């Protein structure tokens, strides 16, 4: 077990950071806001933490905290500006924001290290630390998914007019989703950067948006558990299918397409279906037994 852990520690850590990134995209979508600003927040968080460590000589956790807070503030401010956009127009505006973050990093001179990025920001982070952060984040999200809060969030997404009629301040919920997404994205960026000690502008790109979106759609879009499943799949899939060698990317594409076709609610939906079916069958069997007895 400990051997296995030692061999795969990077994958385990990457799964956790990918989960954070996926959650930063999933949260706004659950609130009915099609925002990809979480990836921009990843860049802001990563750069801020690296700058704090390299230029200011801060220690690991204050740097991470600064990155997360700053990303949260910036994305919240973005939310204030773009809140009246809807659907894919919102998507485009937030992608534009993300790409602008990258361009600013390229042109940031000494501060951001220009196109070469920053390096040497190796933080003291181990798996336990990341796990603790993830647990806190997930606990907050579970609260937004549970009972009354969960229902209110669902209403804000599915039927904003009804939500307003019910006395829910839709605009405030949506703005809150920006702030949460910013903080989570910032955490993901800061932790990832300090784990691998470097960040470059080229990483904060459209591909990252695609990866995060793929993970939550394939995993399951409605719950943190779906994002977790997605993160596990996309971090571990390449290792699992590496026996196909140079055809790895082909198999990867094929599997993603198949998942999109056959899993309307993602892997989580599939699991829920199976559990549901199993329960119904047990229930039926019990009923049958009862009837026979009766």
């Amino acid at each position, binding site marked *: 077990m400990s051997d296995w852990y030692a*061999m795969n520690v990077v*994958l385990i850590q*990457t799964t956790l950071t990918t989960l954070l990134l996926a959650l930063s995209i999933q949260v706004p979508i659950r609130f009915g806001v099609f925002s990809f600003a979480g990836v921009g927040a990843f860049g802001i968080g990563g750069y801020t933490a690296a700058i704090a460590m390299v230029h200011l000589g801060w220690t690991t956790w204050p740097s991470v905290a600064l990155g997360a807070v700053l990303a949260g503030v910036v994305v919240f401010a973005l939310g204030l500006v773009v809140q009246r956009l809807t659907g894919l127009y919102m998507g485009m505006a937030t992608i534009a924001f993300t790409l602008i973050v990258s361009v600013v990093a*390229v042109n940031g001179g000494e501060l951001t290290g220009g196109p*070469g990025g920053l390096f*040497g920001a190796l933080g003291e982070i181990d798996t336990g630390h990341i796990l603790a952060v993830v647990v806190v984040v997930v606990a907050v999200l579970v609260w937004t998914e549970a009972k009354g809060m969960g229902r209110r969030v669902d209403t804000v997404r599915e039927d904003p007019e009804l939500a307003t009629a019910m006395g829910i301040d839709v605009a405030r919920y949506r703005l809150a989703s920006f702030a949460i997404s910013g903080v989570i994205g910032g955490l993901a960026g800061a932790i990832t950067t300090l784990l691998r*000690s470097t960040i470059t502008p*080229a990483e904060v790109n459209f591909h990252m948006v695609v990866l995060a979106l793929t993970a939550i759609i394939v995993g399951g879009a409605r719950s943190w558990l779906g994002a977790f499943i997605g993160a596990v799949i996309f971090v571990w899939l390449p290792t699992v299918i*590496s026996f196909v060698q140079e055809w*790895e990317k082909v198999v990867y594409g094929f599997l993603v397409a198949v998942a999109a076709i056959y899993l309307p609610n993602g892997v989580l939906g599939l699991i829920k279906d199976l559990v549901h079916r199993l329960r119904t069958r047990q229930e039926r069997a019990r009923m049958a037994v009862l009837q026979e007895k009766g």
Partner: protein
Amino acid sequence: MGSAARKRRTLLAGLAVSAVVATAACGGPEAGGSGGGGIEKTIKIAQVQDQTGPIAYAGLGASEGAELAIEEIEQQNFLGEGVKIELQKLDTAGEIERASSEMNKAMGDRDVDAIIGPAATQQAAAVAPLVGRQKVPTVFTQAGGQGVVINDYTFRVTPPMESYYELAVDYLDKKGVKTISVLYNATFPTFAELGEKRVPQMAKDRGIEIVQSLPVQMTTQDFAGQSQQIARKNPDALVMLLIAPQSVTALRQLKDAGYDNLIVATSVQAAGNIKEAGDAANGLVYPVPFSTAMDGESSAAFTEAFRKKFNKDPDPYAADGYDAMWFIARAIKASGDSSREGIRKGLAQVAKEGFTGAMGNLTFEGNDARIEGALVQWQDGKEILAQ
């Protein structure tokens, strides 16, 4: 890799470790006397480089070069009678996380004695602190940026482009060039460094005036505007620092815009990457760490052996892999010890002395290789030495 296969390998690795421990325990006195573990019968080298994805060419080329080197090392009994080298290829697929993960696996496998590390700077910079911490000697190829050669365990066999770019500027000076324009991809770290700092400095030292400096970015695909601006200024020469597809387009559009003067480029144009520009690429000059046109004895011998084994021309990436593998083999011979620590000592020693490989004479600044390089000219579909 299937999980069953992985389990089996982990198990085997475990067995191998215990076997080594057992032998070490038995042969304690002798081993202690010679001060090292000696040379194993099978030496395992992990190549953690891109085998798929956008920069697979670097990893695939290096694999071919390394395989050729292994064949020669084994045939010559360079490390002693019957000593085999096993090359394990681990694919980083163009991703930083994959690179750290695969590196971590290689470092965790006690059988792996040394690593040929990632070719992309970002991947290399992410793993460099780790190999220092885990004390695994790692030889990088390509990875020309900063933050790669940072501790006693990191070595780099490909010289960074700026270390031999003087060749190109010297050539311009020799040709009597007085004015140049610089067209460069400013989002590509190496080109940004060259275009903004190195080339201006080199030009200034030789009294060459830069009349125009045009930065573009990674996503720029059309160079009609820049080409016309350059044609209007009509400098004596153009320094073109662009990635492969951009170069093809720019060369054609420069011709269309009526610019016919000298153009110097970079080693990105090697490996036939400029072929698609057709006649527009004729006369293009660029410095390379390796070319089949190089006439030095060791380079020519490499080219010939490579052609014989693979039935095609070697590219600079193959030369990287070849020199990296020979670097490691020489290190093992120098220290007489194929353990990780032994290889590190050997690498440092060989680096101090330098050696001759596919790229010619390699000398080292610390752990970082330097070469003379060659200036080549593209003419009718192949490289010749520039006159």
